[in-house]
């Protein structure tokens, strides 16, 4: 197992040609999303303008699940590959952070859509409830990431937790879905239910998915690089601390 993070290259930021290209593409797609979502696509027959919130709500939901899928995948790669590369751990952590943000967005946009459409901010429909539970689960995952310890300890702990979360997801989904199917009003309140999407609306949704996916990738690359730099900082700090300790006249441990 490598004990230190490799020292950084000379550049100081986390941007590269690749991220700049992705960033530009993301901005362009988001611009398209704004244009189509707010402008070109028609209002829904029944729900009028509020349907436009779906163009944000559906992509963020999709991205949140994608992000957690990446977290789980990277957790598995960290644990089960021989090298136990910390890079996987950083990807997992960064992806989880972004996923939590997207999940929060999903919940908020769901509430914003629900209020004018159905009259209530929250409905215990299967998807929203599952999302809310997973949101708390991953907040817990992030809390555990912050518990401290060596890089590999953090990585191992988080990876195990990340994989456990994968077990939880189907269990939560089934239980919530069965639960809500007991109530006849299961379909009421689910954002997107009762909405018929025609050609242009579907296209706007598609644009939204692409735009947010690009945004996710951009954020992931930057954030994981920033985490790598934090790790390097820790290691450099440790080197300095070791040198300082050796030169102390009287050693005092905390």
């Amino acid at each position: 197992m490598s004990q230190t993070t490799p020292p950084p290259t000379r550049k100081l930021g986390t941007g590269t040609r690749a991220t700049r290209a992705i960033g530009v593409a993301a901005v362009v797609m988001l611009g398209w999303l704004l244009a189509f979502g707010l402008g070109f696509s028609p209002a829904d027959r029944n729900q009028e303008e509020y349907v436009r919130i779906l163009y944000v709500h559906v992509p963020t939901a999709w991205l949140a699940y994608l992000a957690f899928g990446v977290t789980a995948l990277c957790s598995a790669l960290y644990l089960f590959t021989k090298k136990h590369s910390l890079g996987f751990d950083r990807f997992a952590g960064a992806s989880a952070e972004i996923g939590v943000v997207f999940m929060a967005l999903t919940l908020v946009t769901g509430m914003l859509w629900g209020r004018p459409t159905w009259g209530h901010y929250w409905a215990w429909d299967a998807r929203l409830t599952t999302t809310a539970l997973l949101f708390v689960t991953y907040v817990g995952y992030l809390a555990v990431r912050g518990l401290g310890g060596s890089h590999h300890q953090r990585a191992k702990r988080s990876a195990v937790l990340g994989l456990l979360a994968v077990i939880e997801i189907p269990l939560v989904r089934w239980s919530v879905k069965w639960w809500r199917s007991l109530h006849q009003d299961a379909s009421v309140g689910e954002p997107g239910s009762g909405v018929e999407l025609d050609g242009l609306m579907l296209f706007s949704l598609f644009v939204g998915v692409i735009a947010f996916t690009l945004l996710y990738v951009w954020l992931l690359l930057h954030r994981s690089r920033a985490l790598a730099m934090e790790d390097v900082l820790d290691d450099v700090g440790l080197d300095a601390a070791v040198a300082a300790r050796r030169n102390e006249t009287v050693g005092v441990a905390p």
Partner: protein
Amino acid sequence: MSRFQVARLVAVKDLRVERRSKVVTNQILPFAGATMVMFAFALDSKGVSGVDEDGQRWTTDVLALVAPGLVWLATLFSLLILVGRAFAVESEDGALDALRVAGVDPAAIFWGKSAALAVQLFLLELVLVVAAVLLYNVDVPLGGVALLGVTLVAATFGLAFVGTLYGGLAAGFTGRESLLPLLVLPVVAPVLIGATRAVESALGTGGVALAEGWPWVGLLAVFAIAFGVGGALAFGPLIEEAT
């Protein structure tokens, strides 16, 4: 020693400690009972009424209607305390460290502690069911006893496995015990949902049929198996203390 033997050793040790210290019987059970009373204060006990399929009018207490849910809520709160206690016993004199140095298979520690926790939890749930019968005016029909029993067992194992797993994680970090509820509650949500629905079927609460409860028991069983296996694998890495 085989893994099973070590697990049994750990479980017996935990139960013996409880038998001597009586913390569960003297502190946690009364807490659970007090919670059931608090629920009655907080929830309006004015009756609800309706008309069923045969055109008959029925009335029922709100408490009787939500009794299954309250039993499981009280169980969950008590679980957090039970888990905290189970690991406080280890941390008190550095025994968890000693267990790690002893090179005991972490999976064995996990199953042993889960088993002891399950026994205590099961007794607690029985007491809570009795409390519900007494305080909330609930009847247990004879036909529902089997379903009730199986539900209790399946749910208990799931809760015990999850509690032990995350309790071990939180125990390694002094001052981070508050992490335990945050980690445990979202994970046991399926148990809360499933166990409550199953008990509603068993008791016939709100007219729910008996047959509807068994699929939920299936879910509880899957949950318990998933965490029994996953927890055993995960326990080792999670109890390594941070340095």
